């Protein structure tokens, strides 16, 4: 193989064909919030941990839907479960449960 000094760049594209539908379905069974989020961003805006680290329930949900499970885990790893997001969610999503469900589902993966 020859090293030309430039390489194929990995695609940033979300490939929905490769999304683990089972993970989404399992999580939806655990908490329907993963489906009912309307991406308003209230959770991220009010997040206590968000002041210190990149934390967002909205983005975590989206990441799971887009098959970026590791990113979802990262986005929630700094969560302190304070529950502000649950209070502000206009869809009434039990965000704390959803966060724990996502953490549990991808625990050790």
């Amino acid at each position: 193989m020859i090293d030309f000094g430039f390489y194929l760049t990995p695609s940033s594209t979300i490939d929905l064909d490769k999304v683990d539908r089972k993970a989404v379905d399992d999580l939806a069974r655990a908490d329907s919030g993963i489906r009912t989020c309307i991406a308003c961003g209230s959770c991220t805006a009010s997040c206590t941990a968000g002041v210190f680290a990149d934390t967002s329930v909205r983005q975590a949900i989206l990441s799971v839907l887009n098959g970026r499970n590791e990113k979802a885990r990262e986005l929630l790893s700094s969560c302190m479960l304070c529950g502000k997001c649950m209070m502000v969610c206009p869809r009434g999503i039990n965000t704390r449960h959803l966060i724990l469900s996502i953490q549990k589902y991808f625990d050790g993966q």
Partner: protein
Amino acid sequence: MIYEGKQKIWSDYQKEIPDDHYYYVRSCIRQTFFPASEGALLKITRGILGRDVFENEHHTTCGGIAYHTDTIPHETVMTIVARQFALMHKHGYENYVCSCITSFGIYIETLETWRNFPELEAKIAENLKKTCNLEFAKPKFVVHTSDLIYKLREEIASKAKYKLVNVKTGQPLKVVEHIGCHYSKMFPSKGVGGAEYPYVLAGMVEAWGGEIVDYPERRHCCGFGFRQYLIKANRGYSLSNTHKKFESMEPYEPDFIITNCPGCAYFMDRWQYVIAESQGKTYGENGRGIPVLTYEEVAGLVLGFNPWDLGLQTHQVYVEPLLDKLGIPYEPAKKFLGAKGQDLGCPALPTCLKV
């Protein structure tokens, strides 16, 4: 794929292409990498089909590459363009044909700019007067050389010695067309068949007996993308774009690729070598790559030109298997002979990409 649907769109995007009397300008890249293609164009239009295609030595680059790499301002480019048009006018022509897709895009964009901003046109005319002392003029028609060949495709077919048919199986060859981005993506009405389903190359392939295959990434850029290639740090993106296209077309097993853009012909050909040598991945039958031809090369082959006179030896992907399919005779020994018959020597062979 519903063919009638495409036909409907093609019928919506008809472009007027004059039959004769062109002022002809060359392509910087093609002169360097595929000089025989431009030679073939003149040989076919002037020699075989008897058209008046006038060329004069005073025309220059259109400035497109410099423009797209942000090294010269728009106004400069437009003045260069105005000079080209003025030269055409000076020689009594009003039909302008260019050999390069980047140039074609530049000309169309410039004319549209002038149409929308007449004050800019006046300013450029003044620039032209000041710098070159030439009379400002606009062409009646601007076409790309592929438009011209498209216009003449049936005449070429009537004189053809070969068809784009596999002589062993009798099946039409499967051809992937690649249209340069600046041909119709910017101004769909300026291209034959529009932007989404351009017909300019498809029409030629159909006329000459081949079969067009449409594949998902057909619309995607070849990867040249000016800054993507020209700056080495970005070159991986250029390669990745090409890779994406080849991955997408691979299942269709095309016999060759026809393209109407200088950069595309070059990159789709050369990047196959780079992908093969750096990734170990090859496309086409037996790891020999998929030949990439310009439309003049294809026309020349169909008309029975000697492949080596068409410059097919300058391609990275060896065209011999394609010539075999077409039933076109060639002399392997003469492949690397110079203009005066001297032996130029065979270039070093790649390891992964088979020849």
